């Protein structure tokens, strides 16, 4: 497959860039933060996105979607990374849609996918239990109870968990800690009895929640996929999100470089435009090279997710790891090259270093994925 965007994806990219620059630039995130928005995102922008079809890129046509695939989904995520647009796009349009369209029963698909496509339902994936991502470490228990299950445990770092209508929860139905076997996935409505959601205030001003499940009763049809065999589907759902995050970080890294290069062309010190200093030129050129590598592996990964989703795990880990490191380098170099002004809250660059840190940590940081990559390569 050619490593360029299709005409269709290219048009989507241009449209997304235009819309986000106009309707959801960094200043929107700043406003949401300063106003201490309870939602943490702008519902009217989200509605607009849904109308443009962004929430349906991964929803099959029979359920009201446009099924454009992961490359298209990544193009939108990348543009959102440029503007740091806060929205439940990743948790819902990418991960929720992937979860349901690939692993949902007909009833589950029928219930959720049209609502996701329409922008009417928000989903979140509740997987982590400790400070570090490790989806085999599941202690949340799901005991059989009557016709269904009773869930007890706690989840943390649930992106968009605060505003989700439905949570996709991993819980243990069998097996011991750190075993892949025995993990099951459940669709849990946020208003189910026993669900306690506490919003966490995050460094990037985005949503995240700590969730307690205190004997939450769900029916058997809340099970997503097979009982005890939820780990593989979970990894696929996570991989869609990881690739989306990598794409988002690619956009953020590009924007950091762009703003920095523009600043280097303007700022004068010692009677010279600082962009004439070779020390800074070489660092900017190195950063450019790293970002180009990151862009390539992200595109390759998104293409693999579309063509061979069951064989994408290694590429996903490579992309998440590489882009996480590159985006952090980009954010760090941006602040350093901006000097004092980059340290002020008034300036936008700080929002990038914060968001990139969170995106890097979400669903496995660079270390996690580098380690996973090595394991998949058998060393």
């Amino acid at each position, binding site marked *: 497959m050619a490593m360029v965007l299709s005409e269709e994806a290219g048009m989507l990219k241009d449209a997304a860039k235009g819309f986000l620059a106009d309707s959801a630039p960094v200043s929107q995130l700043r406003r949401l933060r300063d106003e201490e928005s309870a939602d943490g995102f702008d519902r009217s922008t989200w509605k607009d996105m849904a109308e443009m079809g962004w929430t349906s890129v991964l929803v099959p046509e029979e359920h009201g979607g446009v099924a454009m695939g992961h490359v298209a989904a990544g193009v939108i995520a990348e543009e959102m990374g440029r503007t740091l647009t806060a929205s439940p796009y990743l948790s819902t349009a990418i991960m929720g849609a992937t979860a349901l369209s690939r692993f949902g029963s007909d009833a589950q698909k029928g219930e959720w996918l049209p609502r996701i496509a329409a922008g009417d339902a928000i989903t979140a994936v509740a997987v982590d239990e400790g400070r570090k991502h490790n989806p085999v470490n599941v202690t949340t228990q799901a005991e059989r109870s009557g016709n269904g299950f009773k869930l007890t445990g706690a989840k943390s770092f649930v992106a968009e968990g605060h505003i989700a209508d439905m949570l996709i929860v991993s819980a243990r139905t069998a097996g011991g800690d750190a075993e892949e076997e025995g993990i099951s996935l459940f669709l849990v409505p946020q208003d189910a009895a026993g669900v306690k959601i506490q919003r966490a205030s995050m460094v990037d001003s985005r949503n995240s929640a700590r969730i307690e499940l205190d004997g939450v009763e769900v029916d058997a049809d809340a099970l997503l996929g097979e009982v005890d065999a939820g780990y593989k589907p979970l990894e696929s759902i996570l991989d869609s999100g990881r690739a989306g995050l990598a794409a988002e970080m690619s956009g953020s890294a590009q924007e950091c470089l762009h703003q920095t290069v523009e600043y280097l062309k303007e700022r004068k010190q010692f009677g010279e435009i600082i962009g004439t200093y070779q020390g800074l030129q070489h660092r900017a050129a190195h950063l450019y090279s790293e970002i180009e590598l990151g862009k390539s592996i992200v595109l390759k990964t998104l293409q693999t997710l579309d063509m061979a989703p069951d064989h994408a795990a290694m590429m996903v880990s490579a992309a998440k790891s590489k882009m996480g490191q590159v985006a952090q380098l980009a954010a760090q170099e941006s602040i350093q090259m901006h000097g*004092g002004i980059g340290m002020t809250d008034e300036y936008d660059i700080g929002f990038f270093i914060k968001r990139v840190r969170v995106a890097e940590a979400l669903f496995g940081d660079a270390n996690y994925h580098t380690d996973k990559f090595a394991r998949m390569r058998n060393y």
Partner: protein
Amino acid sequence: MSDLETFRAETRAWLEANCPEEMRQPLGSEGDICWGGKRWEFKSDAQKVWLERMAEKGWTVPEWPVEYGGAGLSKEEAKILKAEMKAIKARSPLNSFGIWMLGPALLKFGNEEQKLEHLPKIARGEIRWAQGYSEPNAGSDLASLMTKCEDQGDHYLVNGQKIWTSYADESDWIFVLVRTDFEAKKHEGISFVLIDMSQDGVTTKPIKLISGKSPFCETFFDDARCEKHNLVGEKNKGWTIAKYLLTHEREMIGGMGQGSGGMRPMGDIAAQQLGLDDRGMLADPILRTDVARAEIDGLAFLATMERVTDEAKSGQGVGANSSMLKYYGTELNKRRFELMMDSAGSDGLEWGAERDVASHWLRTKANSIEGGTSEVQLNIISKRILNLPTA
């Protein structure tokens, strides 16, 4: 008993008798530091008493001459005082830019009236000073500063803006680099003046950093008045004083690295946060690699601080090595906090508490900017130590 031993015994006894119990407790927060000044509200009686007793002895500035509010102690005596204070865990009675920065500058460059006027008030914590160097368009290139200082016959009139003026919103006076000659070469038209901040022409605005609240302010001079006797040193020769103070500042910031020796080792923190596997190795094998490398660099850096200090004492020192320490120490500190964030995981990404790791992490990003950027330090190393040519 030698004189120094006598001094040590007397000092110990005095401290024991005069340092309030409360002032021997570790600082609960940064808010417990005593900065003094006209607007200072003591956090407790003990804080007030402790400052008064120490100021009375001249021990807030022990090496300054007695006539300027000090105790005229020798280096050796001052060292003993410091050690004895440390022994009973006595808090510093007074922190101030007056003591750290302006005082040394006045002692070196001020005239007798200036010393008598300003130093005792600094020593007693009566006047709190801010420093006004940097400007929005004069960062690394400080000498390009443009704050205008015009001769009005009997006084000067100051107009312009300073940035990164720490605690300016809580200070009484400010020492400022101003431009008194716009025709001269940039280093030759700068003067060093002292300005009373209580006048209407001086206003301040706090700066919020990406890491949250900060002591930094912007300070605006709008027809601010400066009495002629408040020019320090010669007119248009202020750059000499600035350079002296910048070197002083760089050494202070470089010294931060040394403080890190007292920090809890990263490896311990990571082991506690992430746990060890059954072979006793940190559960994240990649973080383990990076932490070990950073800890080794930390040891090497501490050894270098020591060596540079000892070389300076023995006269073998390379002066510009303060730039090397500033460069390496701040870059290493940034690396260290990146690893702390890696180790803290999602818990470390929560935001809000004043002293959370995320806020510290973000604050470290300024380390390699303030007090001369890393790039400026590398320029200095390449020119003054390696003697590489300039284009």
